[in-house]
């Protein structure tokens, strides 16, 4: 073997060993005859390189399985798209179910829509997102809401970022990761709803307070005015007249405070159940109200028919009866032969219906929507607080019942209250 040839073989060996150390174990030395006495050495080097090759391949497989393992267990959905925007990898969290995951490989989001896997909106939103990333080279995130059964939504933040082997070249792949924010989303929504509710309650409370202070001040101001007049009164009759008016104002205030107290009692006090004797309860209410001006002319008719015993909260029922009947008396039409108020109660296992019907003045259609609102007085002759029917509605709601009415001007009004029979609860309480 000539020197030059030997030098060439050695150079070749050095190059291949160098490459192998750098990680390229694919090349081997040729074992031609021309290597002469160096053939054995070349053979030895080839064996070494082969050994290196096997070892590095094992390491690679180990490393790969380590990373795959991490990705597979990650609770965050991860997927990779190729340049054609088709899935080439996804971890279980991405598609939730293994089978779906595997047969999605090679498909794009638009394909997934075609096979009915995702909705059209979802497919096109995702497609637009990835295309945006492809055009700008910047990562982008968006919220994805997926409707599930029973009206429940799941909510995700989906981020797409470009991946390239040689930075800053154009992307070769797109990495997607998806984080489930449903719990966070629901909490935020609940918090928002709570806030709106608090804001409304605060507004209602402010309005309520404004009206209450005003309605308490009005009769007080009149009393003050009457005192001023009495201080300069010329005779006893004048003073008597002023005192009578003061008394009217005091009664008005008392009535108002009673309503407010009933309102707060209804809101605060627990429901206390008793068997209701409708005839007796109604009789008591009518007895107290019948002495009012004109009321004695009204013909009352009470008709109670219960199939089973009825249980409810007597204090709250009293508020309902008292307000409905006193309204019927106050706004009755006394320019007629036979002013009447019929009270009809029908009760069964589940609920009782209480109807209070009159042939009084009635309520104009335009006022029907205001009837149950607080501080709405729809009659020019109203001497009330504008809280009566509002209170009734609150009480009925507290008893889990409902209230409705039918009314025609100059014909009359019929209120109907339906209250559930709390018989079962009563029995449970008693045990």
């Amino acid at each position, binding site marked *: 073997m000539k020197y030059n040839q030997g030098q060439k073989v050695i150079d070749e060996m050095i190059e291949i060993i160098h490459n192998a150390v750098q990680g390229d174990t694919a090349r081997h030395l040729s074992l031609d005859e021309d290597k002469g006495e160096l053939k054995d050495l070349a053979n030895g080097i080839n064996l070494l390189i082969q050994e290196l090759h096997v070892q590095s391949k094992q390491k690679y497989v180990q490393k790969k399985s380590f990373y795959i393992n991490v990705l597979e267990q990650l609770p965050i959905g991860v997927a990779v798209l190729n340049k054609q925007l088709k899935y080439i990898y996804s971890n279980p969290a991405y598609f939730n179910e293994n089978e779906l995951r595997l047969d999605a490989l090679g498909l794009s989001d638009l394909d997934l829509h075609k096979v009915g896997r995702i909705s059209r909106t979802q497919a096109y939103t995702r497609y637009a997102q990835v295309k945006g990333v492809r055009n700008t080279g910047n990562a982008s995130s968006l919220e994805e809401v997926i409707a599930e059964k029973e009206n429940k939504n799941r909510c995700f933040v989906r981020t797409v970022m470009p991946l390239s082997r040689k930075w800053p070249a154009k992307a070769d792949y797109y990495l997607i990761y998806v984080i489930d924010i449903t719990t966070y989303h629901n909490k935020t929504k609940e918090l928002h709803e709570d806030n709106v509710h608090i804001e409304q309650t605060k507004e209602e409370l402010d309005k309520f307070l*404004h009206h209450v*202070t*005003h*309605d308490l*001040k*009005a009769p*007080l*101001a*009149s009393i*003050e*005015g*009457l005192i*001023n*007049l009495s201080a*300069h009164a010329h005779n006893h009759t004048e003073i008597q007249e002023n005192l009578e*008016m003061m008394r*009217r*104002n005091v009664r008005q205030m008392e009535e108002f405070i009673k309503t407010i107290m009933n309102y707060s009692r209804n809101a605060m006090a627990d429901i206390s159940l008793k068997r209701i004797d409708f005839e007796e309860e109604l009789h008591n209410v009518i007895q107290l109200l019948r002495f009012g001006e004109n009321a004695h002319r009204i013909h009352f008719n009470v008709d109670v028919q219960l199939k089973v015993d009825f249980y409810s909260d007597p204090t709250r029922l009293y508020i309902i009866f008292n307000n409905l009947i006193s309204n019927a008396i106050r706004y009755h039409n006394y320019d007629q032969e036979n002013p009447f108020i019929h009270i009809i109660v029908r009760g069964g296992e589940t609920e009782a219906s209480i109807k209070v019907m009159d042939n009084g003045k009635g309520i104009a259609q335009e006022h029907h929507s205001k009837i149950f609102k607080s501080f709405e*007085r*729809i*009659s*020019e002759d*109203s001497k009330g607080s*504008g809280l009566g029917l509002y209170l009734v509605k609150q009480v009925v709601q507290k008893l889990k019942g409902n209230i409705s009415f039918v009314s025609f001007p100059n014909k009359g009004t019929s209120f109907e209250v339906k209250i559930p029979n709390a018989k079962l609860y009563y029995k449970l309480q008693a045990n």
Partner: protein
Amino acid sequence: MDDLKNDGKLKNIILIDDDEIVHFIFGRVATSYNNGINTLCFKSARQALQHLQTNVAQVDLILLDINMPVMNGWEFLKNYQELKFSYPVYILSSSADSSDLQKSTTFDSVKGYFTKPITLQNFETLEKQFEKHGLQS
């Protein structure tokens, strides 16, 4: 002075308030201020508007309550200004609430705000402002 006051221009006052006791107090205070004052009281804003529209009324000024059923003081003022009435209006309310006071200034026809009960001093103020107003116009 008393003679001058009796010859003042303030003669005809309208009160709009749903509370009859307020009518009574107003009438008494007005009479004791000046026996020659004519007062006209309405129980509802609707009745007052009807009266103003159908009668060529002798009106120097209007006292108006805010909190009334069906048509309240603010609704009255809206209608009143739309109908182009120009008699000066003074609020007479039991509310000393600043938000009500503020709201009253948004109506051009409102010239003042009194809290109940109405007093002799209120009448003196009304008279002074009425005379001033009369001189200006």
